[in-house]
């Protein structure tokens, strides 16, 4: 996953698309494991966004305050 411009919304949408295709069960095993891996990574990144302070944003905000 590229680090630049992570979009929470896009990530979540992709996760939900993956879930939909998993639930339809129209994937073969290889695709499934790839998709599950991708969804897990995306969810991890989303979680990070919600629960872990991003130093870069923090720094921007420090500057804004001045």
């Amino acid at each position, binding site marked *: 996953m590229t680090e630049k411009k992570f979009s929470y919304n896009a990530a*979540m949408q992709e996760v939900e698309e993956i879930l939909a295709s*998993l639930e339809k069960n129209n994937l073969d095993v290889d695709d499934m494991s790839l998709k*599950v891996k991708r969804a897990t990574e995306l*969810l991890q990144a989303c*979680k990070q*966004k*919600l629960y872990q*302070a991003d130093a870069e944003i923090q720094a921007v*905000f420090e500057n*804004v305050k001045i």
Partner: protein
Amino acid sequence: MMDSITLLDLNLMVRNRLRKEFSDTIWLRAEVSECKENYSGHCYMELIQKRDGSDAICAKARATVWANVWSGLKPFFEKQTGTQLQPGQKVLVEVSVEFHELYGYNLVIRNIDPTYTMGALSIRRLEVIRQLTSDGVIDLNKELVWPLLPQRLAIISSPTAAGFGDFMDQLHHNDYGLVFYTALFPAIMQGEDAEGSIIGALNRIQDSAVDFDAVVIIRGGGATADLSCFDRYDLCFYCAQYPLPILSGIGHDRDSSVLDRVANTSVKTPTAAAEYLVSSMAQEAFRLDSNSEKLNVTTQRLLEAYKQQLKVNSDRLRLNVRERIHGAELMVERRETEIRNQVNRLILKKNQWVEMQYSNLLYRSKSNLDQRKHKTEILEKTLAGFSPDILIKRGFSLTLHNGKIVKSVLDLSQGTEICTRLRDGLIYSTIDKTEIQND
């Protein structure tokens, strides 16, 4: 010295005249420009009147509400209007006109009609709303999509307000551990300077608008509740067109201000604003959790299904292989039997042939033997004709030497005794002479 009176005399005269002239109370329309309650519970105000369509004051008077009246009027007014009596408000008050020789002209307020104030406030609000509507901007901020993650927030507040502290505390120490980034843009939140100050803060935020998800305008704490600045056309016009969604929590219970009307989202208090932000984020956190859970469950279910399928397939494969091996074994056995049978048949055939050959041979050799026997018999018969006995009987004789037949002259020499056999006996003689005869 001309006729003259003292100031006290004059003031007393004015006081008496006024008392006579204004013996009844009067209902008076005015605007409050100052309003202060002192330590003993009396309320001191300044009432003004402005010229129509301008801010220029054309009349002014002091007014007092005595503590015994104020203690009843204050809660009544606040309950009815939802605001405190404060500068800027239009009021309809029942007054008695008084003049005190030392303190001068003063209006003593006996009663107040809150519906007038409410009407004036709402008329002013409605006018602003009508103007914003005809400007086509009233819903612009409302139409902005409230961010999925309202995480980076520009806060417009007074830094010292209790409401701001509560807001920050509630936001940053939320139950879910959700992360928020806040930048405070200090502004004056009440009084005459509030409008310009808030617009200034909004301007500063707009300089780095990309860094923010939303603007939060909060106001809270403090005794007075002068919300009139939030009904001002300029501020509301600015807010309505603001590129970031605005969340207002300006702390009032009853009426909503025009700012509340134009803001993307409006809640009552700073605490409610924090709750709203946290719950917005928590909703996403919940969605995240539920998707995580769904992914887990679905993956497990699929893995289980694949496992099952794998088992079925491997069972089928095993069965298939076993069937095939079994089939092959049967085939081999059949072939073996066939070969054995064929070999047996061949062997049998060969045996028959050999037997036939053998019997043939046997037959043939027997007949051959019989023939030979026959021939031998004939020969024997023929030969019998040639036996010495028969020959001797026919007249031939046989010469013997030492019991052996003499066949050549060379075997004999002079003086050798020989025996000659004849049909009827033997002749013993000694050789005189030998002579070789050649044919």
